[in-house]
């Protein structure tokens, strides 16, 4: 076989570039059909032209025609990365994103067929070669799209952790930590760090951990709470756990969780009252209220 090493694809792409591009865009527009939310027409044309150009250049390098991880494919990969990231951010599905590359396959096959119909052996070889490249690129776009979504998710997760664990100062020397949502080990870590940092910064001697917003308390959550209390105690601050609902109290007892000698209170107000008292403060009325008639 004379053309064992190099393929006719690069040369063939170069010759028919304009026509392929035109057909490809038409195909993409048709495939997209009525579904909205895709890229704009001008953008599509620009992106397609850019991609096809890079694709042609890359396939011309004989050293690694079908290895899309190779250096010669860097530009193609960059274009696809930008494109997929952008589309994923706009809410396109992985299928929509991958269709961009896969729709080229059909066009190329059609052109190859009309070109090489007289040499079936070469035709089969070219089909195989093209399939490998296009499939590789298609998978690559999917991977990039997934990656960009994962980035978004992990960023949101981090933001959520930050948002949901504020440490507030109730009074001089009294901190409150209103917990909302389930406590897993990662969150406990953040909560603990925030609380301890704040204890150091403010010099507070008492911290109230309010678990009104914690939906369930199982052994793990209780263990995490106790850890936080122990760490605060090591720093020289005392913790009061408040906001224990009746169901949670019974769950804790049924599970046999031992909260040890941690002070617990039903409401944040009760806990705050204790905290003030320990600091030698009391809350009282300013002046006697005038008595109502008849009293």
């Amino acid at each position, binding site marked *: 076989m004379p053309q064992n090493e190099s393929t006719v694809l690069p040369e063939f792409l170069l010759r028919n570039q304009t026509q392929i591009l035109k057909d490809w865009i038409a195909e993409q527009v048709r495939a997209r059909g009525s579904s909205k939310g895709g890229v704009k027409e001008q953008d599509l044309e620009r992106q397609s032209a850019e991609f096809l150009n890079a694709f042609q250049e890359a396939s011309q390098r004989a050293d690694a025609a079908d290895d899309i991880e190779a250096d010669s494919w860097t530009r193609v990969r960059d274009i696809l990365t930008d494109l997929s990231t952008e589309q994923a951010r706009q809410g396109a599905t992985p299928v929509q994103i991958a269709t961009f590359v896969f729709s080229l396959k059909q066009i190329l096959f059609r052109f190859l067929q009309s070109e090489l119909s007289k040499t079936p052996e070469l035709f089969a070889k070219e089909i195989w070669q093209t399939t490998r490249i296009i499939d590789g690129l298609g998978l690559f776009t999917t991977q990039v799209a997934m990656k960009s979504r994962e980035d978004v998710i992990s960023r949101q997760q981090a933001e959520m952790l930050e948002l949901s664990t504020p440490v507030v100062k109730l009074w001089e020397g009294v901190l409150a930590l209103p917990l909302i949502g389930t406590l897993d080990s990662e969150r406990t*870590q953040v909560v*603990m*760090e925030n609380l*301890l*940092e704040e*204890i*150091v910064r403010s*010099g507070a*001697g008492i911290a109230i951990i309010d678990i009104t917003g914690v939906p369930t308390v199982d052994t793990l959550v209780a263990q995490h709470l106790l*850890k936080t209390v*122990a*760490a*605060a*105690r*090591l*720093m*020289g*601050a005392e913790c009061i756990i408040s906001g224990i609902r009746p169901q949670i109290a019974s769950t804790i007892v049924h599970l046999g969780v031992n909260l040890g000698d941690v002070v617990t209170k039903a409401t944040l107000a009760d806990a705050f*009252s*204790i905290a003030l*008292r*320990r600091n030698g403060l*009391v809350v009282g009325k300013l002046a006697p209220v005038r008595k109502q008639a008849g009293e």
Partner: protein
Amino acid sequence: MDRIPILKLGDFLLVTVQVDMHDRLAMNLQDDLTEKIVDSHARGVLIDISALDIVDSFIGRMLGNIATMSRILDAETVVVGMRPAVAITLVELGLSLPGVRTALNVERGMDLLRANVAREMSPIIYRDDREDSGEPG
């Protein structure tokens, strides 16, 4: 050989750990401290570990031991100024130092020791009003 200085402040002993505690240093501190407590009739020991940013289980256990020994010699131990990272590490190691009293800084620690001594010296029986802090009125 390295030693951690032990300062006498009235009735109390002040130990400020300024360097990384290695095991040998901790052992020395333990020996020195017990001797010093006996010599000086100290009523309390204040260990400031605000400069300590690495602890391991050995050092954690050592702090607990020092507190227990001091108590046997009738001196209360207060560990002050523990850093958040150190506190978290000790808790994760399962060492919550149950017998050790803690305070946020040296000043608070001193207050704690003084209150302790005053309580013991006071002829009036001390009533811990922490427990009956019910609703006012």
